[in-house]
């Protein structure tokens, strides 16, 4: 077990909608910046705010019982669409540490891992159960990454799956690019070989 017993402990809310795309998570009008910050306030913007900019009282994140949630229980195929990494940035900056879904879109999943946001994949049946628990009130959940389970307040454990390499990346403090840099020799060798096998792939100069 790593230093702390749980990857995260927090309360959860449900957003039981399938195919939530990254345009919903963070609409394009917020992609015009050049920094990685400031996206939390725009999370789920079109659902979270009314036309006049006031909070939409019907949206889950605006309801008093769900203030301070850090675990999002979503639907099927969460994060589909655009590759924008602004989506996990917005989720993380809002305060989410974990997203639970029955499946994730590939690019979004990878972006989550690279931002230490845990995409926890559970079965469709378990997702239904979990959604039912979180729909009325914020459920306190302990996220055990070692055992790959979500422990509910009544002690019930719901298993989730994650590749071991992804789990390691979430737990490790090491720099993602640094790992590849340990293989610089191999990259050099590969590039040298290619200069003979596929020389036309290697533009020596490229002026535009």
């Amino acid at each position: 077990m790593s230093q702390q017993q749980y990857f995260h402990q927090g309360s959860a809310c449900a957003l039981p909608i399938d195919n939530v795309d990254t345009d919903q998570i963070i609409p394009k009008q917020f992609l015009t910046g050049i920094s990685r910050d400031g996206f939390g306030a725009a999370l789920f913007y079109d659902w979270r705010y009314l036309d006049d900019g006031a909070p939409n009282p019907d949206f889950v994140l605006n309801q008093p019982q769900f203030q301070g949630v850090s675990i999002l229980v979503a639907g099927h195929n969460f994060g589909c669409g655009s590759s924008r990494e602004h989506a996990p940035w917005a989720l993380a900056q809002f305060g989410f540490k974990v997203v639970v879904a029955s499946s994730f879109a590939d690019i979004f999943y990878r972006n989550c891992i690279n931002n230490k946001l845990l995409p926890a994949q559970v079965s469709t049946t378990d997702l239904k159960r979990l959604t039912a628990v979180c729909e009325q009130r914020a459920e306190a959940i302990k996220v055990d990454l070692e055992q790959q389970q979500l422990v509910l307040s009544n002690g019930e454990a719901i298993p989730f799956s994650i590749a071991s390499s992804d789990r390691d990346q979430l737990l490790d403090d090491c720099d993602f690019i640094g790992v590849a840099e340990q293989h610089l020799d191999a990259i050099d060798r590969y590039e040298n070989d290619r200069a003979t096998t596929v020389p036309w792939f290697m533009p020596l100069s490229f002026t535009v």
Partner: protein
Amino acid sequence: MGMTLYEKIYDQHQVAQLNDSTDLLYIDFHFIHEVTSPQAFAGLKQAGRTVRNPVATLATMDHNISTQNRRIDGAGEVSQQQLTALQKHCREFQIPLIDITHRDQGIVHVIGPEQGITQPGMTIVCGDSHTSTHGAFGALAFGIGTSEVEHVLATQTLPQQRAKNMKVQIDGQLPMGVTAKDVILAVIGRIGTAGGSGYVVEYCGSAIESMDMEERMTVCNMTIEMGAKAGLIAPDEVTFSYLQGRPRAPSGDQWQRALARWKTLKSDADAVFDKTVHIDASSIRPQITWGTSPEQVMAVTERVPDPANFPATEQQRSVAKALEYMGLTPGSLLQDYPVDVVFIGSCTNSRLVDLRQAAAVVKGGRVAPHVRALVVPGSAQVKREAEAEGLADVFRAAGFEWREPGCSMCLAMNDDIVPAGKRCVSTSNRNFEGRQGRLARTHLASPAVAASAAIHGYLSTNPLVSGEGLI
């Protein structure tokens, strides 16, 4: 056991194994654009890193620019900030940039192939999900996030896990008036928006073989809309003749060597696919989406579905939600709904073939008085060619706006926005809620169907039935 095309390309690019499931893959070419790159450059600088192979990188401006003019401040101050940041980063790291006024400027997935950069057997990435477009050349091409953009800039590699293989075989002849866009919409309707998750999809069959490169790009472009990592089409004579003579394609001796290698790039006869889907081309009709996900699609002549006819309650709920957003009544015919906006453009359908198909429908007609219609060519080159061929005149004479190249109303980051509650027939790739503007209602369709909607002023009169666009 034989190998699939995907497995061959993957193996040819393996630089190192990082752990049981992850390999370090070499990336041959990296496209970047203004929206998903600034934070990557900031990260590089913060870590004191540099760009490993600037000439294997090409930067372009497309998402955020005005399509009314070629000015860097054309789409306002905020977008200008991103554009000047890109200029600055390209200067600093010596990355070639196709600037906003460059004669080859355009949408990243249009100009890469156009310049001959996209070639069979390559690995290509871009911080943009529609990078799948380049798979039409038998290149392994996929979209990545900004952290990965930074990784590729720094190391020219990316950690990858092997995807599963899916074969989508489409045989037979497409009915008259049915285009590549209808084919891919029908495939997505069949497979679903998550059906391709974890897979690389290889398209094959006689209907694919008889498509030209631009049509193949339309098919591969929307592969991401079924959640697949990438789409692939094995290179053949059509591919080779498209490439020959392009500015960045190999020439002379190199051309012969390249050709010999490219000809080996196909799945072996005994290659094993994890999943195979067969589709009869002759059964495909012109398609249009009715909902807020590309899988919510039907033939233009069908009736809007009734939520009650879906088996699961979740489905019923999501169909009802989509219909409410779209302002459609279950069981109605789309031809009864007036159209407000028609957009012909995007990396899916903004190439010369697309504009020809649309112009064939438009020719001699007038855009209906209540419709605002625009054509946004995918690149400056497409624009020049379309003007030379007289297509621009056809559009302008009919009352279409004829714009400068860019992403435009595909994602509405500039001022090309569909107003709230308005209905748009669009040749782009995503009908997500709010994609073309808050509360905008998007119907995805082919250039021919979109052009027909512009002229008639109503959704989807069927160009197949009315005999329009028979080219």
